[in-house]
């Protein structure tokens, strides 16, 4: 480990203690069956059921817009700031830019994350940007950049989807003009089952194939609901075309399911503002 002169440094080498626990000897198949059996999952959900979602706006007083979301155990906070000049840019651009920074808090995952962004976080930042770019009316702030910062406080699975939903809400809260409300859902495939809104455990299990030759993988989809446009789609793993197509349909529906909740949250915020202004 190189010494970071701008932080307090620990000892040179540290190892997470989780590696030394008693080995889990169960095969992946049994582990997965424990997670999901006969269409009922560990947390008593059906395969296409969302976890409980709690969402609120205006949590960061210093930010222009902010929101906080709890997707089951997953907790994400997002803040949005005023447009600022695009750094290192000299030519005039007709469309504004948005810049996303997705970060896991060091203690948010089972394995400790470093303070610097790693490649996974950079990848997620890019996906977030992709998802939000087509939702924001970028021509309204030419030449400027809106910064969006997402911080995962606790990763309980589907953190990226949570961050995208929260970011969409934070943008509306900041009064950034938007074409539509954005929702996002993560889905996992394993052993012929399709699970909506993954927990962390399910996420890990969907990443590697179980012995037989069925599809496995994770799909994330973000939807602009009014215009029914997919603004971002991301899949990993190993899936047949039929599986992917089916997932797309499942996810579109799942995304629409949470729209009313987003609308309610936002409406609450508007009502509050209207009342204050009277």
């Amino acid at each position, binding site marked *: 480990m190189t010494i970071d002169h701008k932080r307090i440094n620990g000892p040179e080498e540290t*190892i*997470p203690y989780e*590696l030394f626990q008693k080995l889990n000897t169960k095969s992946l198949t049994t582990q997965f069956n424990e997670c999901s059996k006969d269409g009922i999952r560990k947390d008593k959900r059906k395969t296409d059921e969302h976890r409980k979602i709690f969402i609120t706006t205006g949590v960061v007083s210093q930010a222009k817009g902010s929101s906080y979301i709890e997707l089951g155990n997953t907790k994400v906070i997002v803040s949005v700031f005023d447009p600022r000049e695009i750094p290192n840019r000299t030519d005039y651009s007709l469309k504004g830019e948005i810049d996303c920074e997705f970060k896991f808090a060091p203690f948010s995952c089972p*394995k400790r994350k470093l303070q610097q962004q790693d*490649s996974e976080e*950079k*990848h997620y930042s*890019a*996906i977030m940007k*992709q998802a939000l*770019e*087509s*939702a924001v009316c970028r021509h309204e702030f030419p030449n400027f950049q809106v910064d969006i910062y997402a911080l995962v406080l606790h990763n309980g699975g589907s953190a990226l989807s949570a961050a995208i939903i929260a970011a969409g809400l934070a943008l509306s809260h900041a009064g950034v003009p938007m074409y539509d409300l954005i929702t996002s859902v993560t889905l996992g495939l394993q052993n012929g089952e399709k699970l909506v809104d993954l927990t962390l455990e399910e996420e890990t299990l969907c*990443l*590697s*194939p179980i012995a037989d030759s069925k*599809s*496995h*993988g994770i*799909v994330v989809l973000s*939807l*602009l609901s009014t*215009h*029914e*446009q*997919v*603004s*971002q*789609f*991301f*899949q*990993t*793993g*190993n*899936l*047949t*075309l039929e599986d*992917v*197509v089916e997932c*797309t*349909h499942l996810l*579109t529906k799942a995304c629409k399911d949470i729209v009313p909740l987003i609308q309610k949250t936002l409406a609450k915020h508007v009502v509050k503002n209207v009342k204050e202004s009277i």
Partner: protein
Amino acid sequence: MALCEAEKTFVLHGVEENFRIDGREREDYRPMELETSIVSHAFGSARLRLANTDVLVAVKIEVDIPFPEKPNEGKIEFFVDCSANATPDFEGRGGEDLAIELSNSLSTAYQSSRAFDLSKLCILKGRKCWKIYVDILLLECGGNLFDAVSLAVKAALWNAQLPLVKSVHVDGNNIEMDVSEELYDCQKLDIKNAPVMVTVCKIGDYCIVDPNQAEEKCSVGSIVVAVSGDRLSTVLQTGAGSLHPTTLVESMKLGHTVGQRLNQALWEALQQIPEDQDVGFLK
């Protein structure tokens, strides 16, 4: 590259008529040139030229320690370098965003053990494994980078020779490996299912493959489909713009069929590559 509205309309009309600006049909690729073993001191290498897009890939292999959480697996790392030769915008760290996007898409496409089995790279559980560095140098950008990069990577991995470990001795904390001295005593990597990516661009109401730079500019949304065998290993949306779910599904279907064709073509091309070729950039 900046396009004015009239130029965009021209491209759009071309796509509608199924007669694109360079004369191709919607599902056609531009001509490709592929060479392997072009970097003499790498374990494997390939150079792919897809019209104006030029990619050079070299594979280097080192001995490493497996990740503690995956003791049975070797490692593969993709590193993309956008050379400033391609465009002055890449000077310094200018190409980093693109490079990260490309390397991330490669690593997700190779993530599943069905696409590329890392467990074959393990030498001794938890102690020693091979680490494959796939270094991609982008020399010229003429559109459709994802396809070109994935093809070149697959070709370079096909070309790569993994040293043969004859035996491993463990003595407490010391591990001795006996690597075959014989120069031709090597293993080939299994890359049968290594993914091939296809970029599908939506222009107007139609989807095309292998967009050139002008077409990329006119696209209202595009997806990259990584095809591994007859399955999909990664699908991701790129660039600004959104797609209707139906369009999305259609593009994936198109990408899936084209990807399989492309994979087949690559496979045939690889078999035909002559043993001793020395052309490189002098051709």
